[in-house]
């Protein structure tokens, strides 16, 4: 009996199955993604293509295999709802009382972020000015929409204006690696896309927001152990040129501390690939609030129409 063609067909259809699943369908689904709007700013397209120098930096990132140690994807374990006071008016005691009442609510109600003694103190000696300073500020955390809405109503009745904030949470975010999880949209313009599979070094998804200073990136590339003692990151000195100072020092020369500084009369100047890589690192940010990864950006919170803004932001979830 000749099974040859049978094996061929078996292999072909088995592979064709997974091929249509993980080659054709991504091409149809992810391949058709377009730029999208960010929450709260319907005219802003997200993401946008990188500027030229940063785009060249992607090439340096690829060539030197940075992705073998750094991932560019942040995870989140969930989302919590925080209730922020945006306007406390002038009559503070009722607000403090309302907060205290909410704090005493049953277990499934919202939890108060500010320590209770602080609230108690504010109530007894009227030191509410300090407590209610620096608004908008989140005071309550709730796990359910209903609880949050009830709390907002209670605060509104007490004369304050409150907003609902959507806050993604998770260990990666707590470590300051980002403000929301990474989604497919963040990578729209990447070619090649390098999400990374290893965290030998920290995640870089939001490197640009964490460290926008290009010069510090250059310094870190030249001598990683300077800013992070005991770091295993290899120095990338081949991206820099150590040369004799000419008529006058180059304005681009690195300002190095004594332990890694070149001998007198010499300077360390980044070569074009180093500048490109630093520009790329500074351009990394995936923190725009999207409809499939919502978060509230407090800076853009408008104090006036608190409840409206809250419902828009929340309904996006």
């Amino acid at each position, binding site marked *: 009996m000749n099974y040859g063609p049978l094996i061929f067909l078996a292999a072909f259809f088995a592979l064709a199955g997974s091929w249509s699943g993980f080659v054709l369908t991504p091409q149809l689904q992810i391949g058709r993604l377009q730029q999208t709007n960010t929450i709260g700013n319907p005219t802003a397209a997200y993401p946008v293509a990188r500027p030229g120098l940063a785009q060249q930096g992607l090439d340096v990132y690829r060539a030197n295999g940075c992705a073998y140690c750094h991932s560019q994807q942040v995870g989140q374990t969930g989302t919590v709802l925080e209730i922020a006071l945006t306007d406390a008016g002038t009559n503070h005691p009722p607000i403090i009382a309302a907060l205290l009442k909410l704090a005493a609510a049953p277990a499934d109600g919202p939890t108060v972020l500010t320590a209770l003694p602080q609230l108690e103190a504010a109530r007894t000696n009227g030191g509410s000015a300090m407590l209610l300073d620096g608004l908008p500020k989140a005071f309550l955390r709730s796990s359910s929409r209903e609880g949050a809405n009830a709390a907002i109503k209670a605060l509104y009745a007490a004369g304050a204006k409150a907003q609902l904030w959507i806050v993604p949470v998770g260990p990666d975010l707590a*470590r300051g690696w980002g403000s929301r999880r990474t989604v497919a949209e963040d990578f729209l313009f990447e070619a090649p896309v390098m999400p990374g599979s290893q965290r030998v070094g920290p995640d870089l998804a939001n490197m640009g927001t964490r460290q926008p200073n290009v010069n510090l990136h250059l310094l870190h590339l030249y001598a990683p152990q300077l800013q992070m003692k005991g770091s295993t990151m290899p120095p990338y000195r081949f991206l820099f040129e150590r040369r004799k100072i000419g008529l006058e020092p180059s304005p681009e020369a690195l300002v190095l501390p004594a332990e890694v500084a070149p001998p007198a009369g010499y300077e360390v100047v980044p070569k074009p690939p180093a500048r490109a890589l630093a520009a790329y690192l500074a351009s990394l940010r995936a923190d725009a609030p999207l409809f499939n990864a919502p978060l509230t950006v407090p800076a853009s919170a408008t104090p006036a129409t608190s409840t409206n803004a809250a419902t828009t932001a929340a309904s996006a979830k």
Partner: protein
Amino acid sequence: MNPNHPKSPFIIHNSSFNLPPSVAPDVIDASCRLPLVVLFLSAAVWLLTASAFGLIASIKFHAPGFLADSAWLTYGRVRPAAVNAMLYGFCLQAGLGVALWMLARLGRTTLAAPWMVIVGALCWNLGVAAGVVGILGGGSTGFENLEMPAYAAALVFLGYLMMAFWGVLTFHQRRERQLYVSQWFLFAALFWFPWIYSTANLVLQGFGARGMAQAVIAWWYSDNLLVVWLALVGLAAIFYFVPKLLNRELHSRYLALMAFWMLILFASWGGIPASAPVPAWMPTLSVVTTVLGVITVIAVFVNVFRTTGGKCLMRMSNPSLKFIGAGLASFVVVGFASAVTALPAVNQVTQFTWFTIGKGLLNFYGFFAMVIFGAIYYIVPQLMGQEFPFPKLVRAHFFTAALGVLLFAVPLAVGGIAQGLKLQHAVIFADIAKGTLPFLRASTVGDLMMALGHVMFLVNLGGLVFQFYRGRALSAWAEATAEIKTAEARP
């Protein structure tokens, strides 16, 4: 269940006087000799190259400044160079050699056009060399396991086509029409690689895809190469050599075929990490199919266990069986580890850690390379008609390889889990990174042990080949000189 299959090739192989084979094994071996020597020797050289690069990468965790001033030897280039040399230089190349030999032996026919296979092998090696140099020179594509730049990939693909073409033809010209299970695995493997390789390279390096679609396709490719292709060839060798060397019947042909079907139907859907920033159905599907992969592992294990009659292969005196036994053990461990770490709750811990790397290397070195070592230690003396010049080195190789894999994989796995557990809390990252260092440094010892084993392997293989061709040259020389003497004597 068909233990007494009337046409099982092993009955005939092992008692060839019952039914004369269509082509005698020594004629088959003679036809395979040169192409296989080329494939195995270059594979051994690549294996050692990979070890050297791997060691350089590993030493960088002891001293980050080690060789850091050279762009060509920076960690991000040396590591992919090591993986590519190992994968394309050793695994695929030696796997193809073993596959061609098994196809010829099981089909009881000579290898079709051995010279073309040699040309293909040379083209393949040229491609891998160009690829590794390209990666070191900064030409990597940026996709894991597919780093070789387009020009090298084209050469590699061409070389593969040449070899696989004659492999398929050998299969087609077989004199024994009844197929043994290994042939199913091998025949599928011959096609599997060009299919996935052409897809991945055309899409990722040719036409281009948008955003994360590239990553999904790259993950799909990696999974199909590392899980499906390696398992197809490795399991074919296990199912062939275990019964053959034990002189027993394979326990169940149907269980083996079930493993085949499970492998090609389900394992080809794995590979998308549970946390990947892609539409959720993709990782979900991967998780389900990876967990189902346990069935394949159990089917294989039960089959071999019953075939051996419950004896431990690693305790056999035959070194080939020792290697294959270690390979099977690693296969089982990797299979279960993959299934467990695919579960989202566990994956949350093991993702982005050294555990994944350790598991991947256990698959390379523990499963595939071990099985292939076992096969090569059996095949090459058959081809040459001589024993290895240093038989003790074969045993020493087994111990260093097994110990090396253990010392390599266990620290990475333990360190990876520790790292993953710390990543679950908002611990300062620098502390987490520092916590992994002792484990990484311990794994360097495993690296060294394995490199030592690879040297032994190369010495033995090269020694045998040298001994054989030296013998040939000497006898040819003797013949030539003898002829002159008789010619002189005649008049």
